[in-house]
């Protein structure tokens, strides 16, 4: 007769999964099928990452509200280009946006200049009349100029600027330890100026999700004017996996 010791794991039982920390608990259902990417990732190098955008207002799996593609290419040791491609779903329509953003590869990925275009199309891809926009942005010392059809608007700031979509890259390279919060003026959606923003390191979590136990995440918080708190989660290689801001969520396509 075998004599099972107390160290032997009883059969037929499963450990209760650890609850997800806030705000990941808002996307628990959406993470049920998430398979983290394998293999290394170099946040300082060239990459292509794509994300599904969800609204989790109704809870559960959330509604698929759009798709985001980011393609980064290094130009030199200190500068890079981010190609941004974003489709936002509407009712029987899509808003398609593209941008080419040149930036410095410093802490905030400080923007240098960008060209942004958007248009509205139906589900067959036909263009809606009068729906196209093309804008340029140029950052200079302490100011940014937004240009649309030869009209310029100049906005000054005592803080450095950071562009919302570039922060998806910047967080991948931030230190994974407490640092003094970095203050900046946010340029949201390419032309909405939101002062008094900051980004800081929150800490590291190890979470269990159905397709992966012990997934290590490094967490950054963005707070400030004109946003509800935004939380960025990067993996141990620095790859951005999730962004959660209230009921707006981005999950890496894996």
């Amino acid at each position, binding site marked *: 007769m075998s004599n099972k010791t107390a160290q032997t794991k009883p059969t037929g039982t499963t450990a209760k999964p650890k609850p997800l920390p*806030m*705000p990941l*608990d*808002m996307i628990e259902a959406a993470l049920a099928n998430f398979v983290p990417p394998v293999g290394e990732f170099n946040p300082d190098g060239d990459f292509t990452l794509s994300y599904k*955008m969800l*609204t989790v*207002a109704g*809870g559960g799996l959330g*509604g698929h*509200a*759009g798709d985001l593609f980011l393609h980064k290419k290094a130009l030199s040791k200190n500068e890079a280009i981010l190609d941004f491609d974003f489709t*936002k*779903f*509407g*009712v*029987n*329509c899509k*808003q398609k946006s593209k941008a080419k953003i040149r930036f410095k590869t410093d802490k905030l990925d400080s923007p240098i200049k960008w060209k942004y275009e*958007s248009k*509205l199309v139906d589900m067959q891809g036909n263009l*809606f*009349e*009068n*729906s*196209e*926009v093309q804008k340029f942005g140029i950052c200079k010392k302490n100011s940014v100029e937004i240009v*649309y*059809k030869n*009209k310029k*608007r*100049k*906005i*000054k*700031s*005592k803080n450095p600027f950071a562009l919302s979509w570039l922060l998806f890259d910047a967080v991948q390279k931030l230190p994974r330890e407490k640092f003094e*919060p970095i203050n900046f*003026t946010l340029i*949201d*959606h390419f*032309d*909405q*100026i*939101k*002062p008094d923003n*900051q980004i*800081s390191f*929150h800490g590291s979590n190890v979470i269990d999700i159905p397709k992966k136990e012990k997934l290590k995440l490094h967490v950054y*918080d963005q*707070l400030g*004017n*004109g*946003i*509800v*708190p935004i939380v960025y989660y990067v993996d141990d290689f620095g790859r951005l996996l999730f962004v959660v*801001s*209230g*009921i*707006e969520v981005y999950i890496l396509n894996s």
Partner: protein
Amino acid sequence: MSNVSTKKKSEISRRTFLKAGAFGAAGMITGCATGKSFMSMFGKSKPNFLFIVTDQQNLDAISAHGNPYVKTPNIDRLVKNGVSFQKSYSTNPVCSPARSSMFTGRMPSETGVVSNDRPIHDDIPNLGELLRKDGYETVYAGKWHLPENWPAKLKGFDVIPVGGGEGDLVDSFTSRQCEAFLHNRDKSKPFILTASLLQPHDICFWAIHGQKLVPKDLRFDEIKNKLPELPPNHSITPRKPKLCVSGYGGFDDDQWRYYLYNYYRQTEMVDADVGRIIDALEDSGQADNTIIIFTSDHGEGAGRHMNVQKWYPFEEAASVPFIVCCPERIRKNIVDTETIVSGVDIVPTICDFAGVDPPKDCCGKSLKPLLEDGKKLDRKFVVYETHVCGRNIRSDKFKYVKYKGDPVEMLFDMENDPWETKNLYDDPKYADVIKEHRKMLEDWEASIKPILPTKAVVPTPNWIQMMIDAQYGPGKTT
């Protein structure tokens, strides 16, 4: 041009803001208004209209009205350049009914939209139909909710389709398409563009999801000292009719403050979208001849009387921003604390400026003489509806509330008790005031033409159906 270099903090402290009442600390400010309309370089040509509607924005969720917890530089531009009304009321502080009045000039009991998810009665023309007949290009972008949230087609309007998700996802979409329209349109015709933005309505989900979005332990240490103070009437719930359910019990004080923090950030989000649209109006060379009307469908509980959301008589739900500006036609920098205005006034005001007859049986008043020349409006009170059977009178100094079939009525002295902390209904000193307000209500009821409710497109919750049955008879719709 906006300037985000260092700004001095508002001199109005948090305490002063909270003491001053729900209408801001500014009072009546006379700025550089000329007091007279003046000819534009276009003479008396038909003006354009930019009608911006937000969702669930409190009257005092605007920094120019003295609120130190929110920064709304773009809405502040409208306040500075126009007339901002401080006694401004939704006709029925919930989405569909309020919006039905904004687009028809009729009360919700007259449009048939007595609760959410109902269409305006077919026989009642909307603003787009009225102006289109007169040669206007009539365009609509954003939330409609009469009954569809995001329509592909609308009677009287060309629709710029948007949609998908909630305010944080949709408003940038909507404002971008409004920007495109303003820059790209054929400028040979006058236009009316409605930009219907959804924020700060997202706050509804902070109450719905409770602890997940508003946790007991604040996750963000950095904002601990930046959370808004609770309002003075936070835990006060005066004696009220049964249907005026309030008291969201899900939060402790710190959670309420974090809830307010998010509400004001969402308000700032919509302010940025307002900015994009008015920048586009200016940059496209159409601002001089465009009248901007800015309002919201209803307010938000924001912790007042322990409330979240809307659809009850208190000020936090019922009072809404109402700002009108146009550099060439309307007085500037006026914060009007005297005139009582309502969502039913929007249509007759626009029609008056456009030189178009107002719709038949319109119960609102044109504010044009007041806006252009400061001519006092002849009005003693407005009425707003709540919960199908609730009727609320806002007179110069008082608010009176009566619900059909409920013995509890309410009377507030709005001059001395703007936070509505003491129901004076049982105080014999106010018996004459109550009698006077009951007479106002009778006169008003005799003046309107109510119809049966239109058919809702989603099942009506039982508690609302019971009210409708009690008010109109069982199973009656148009």
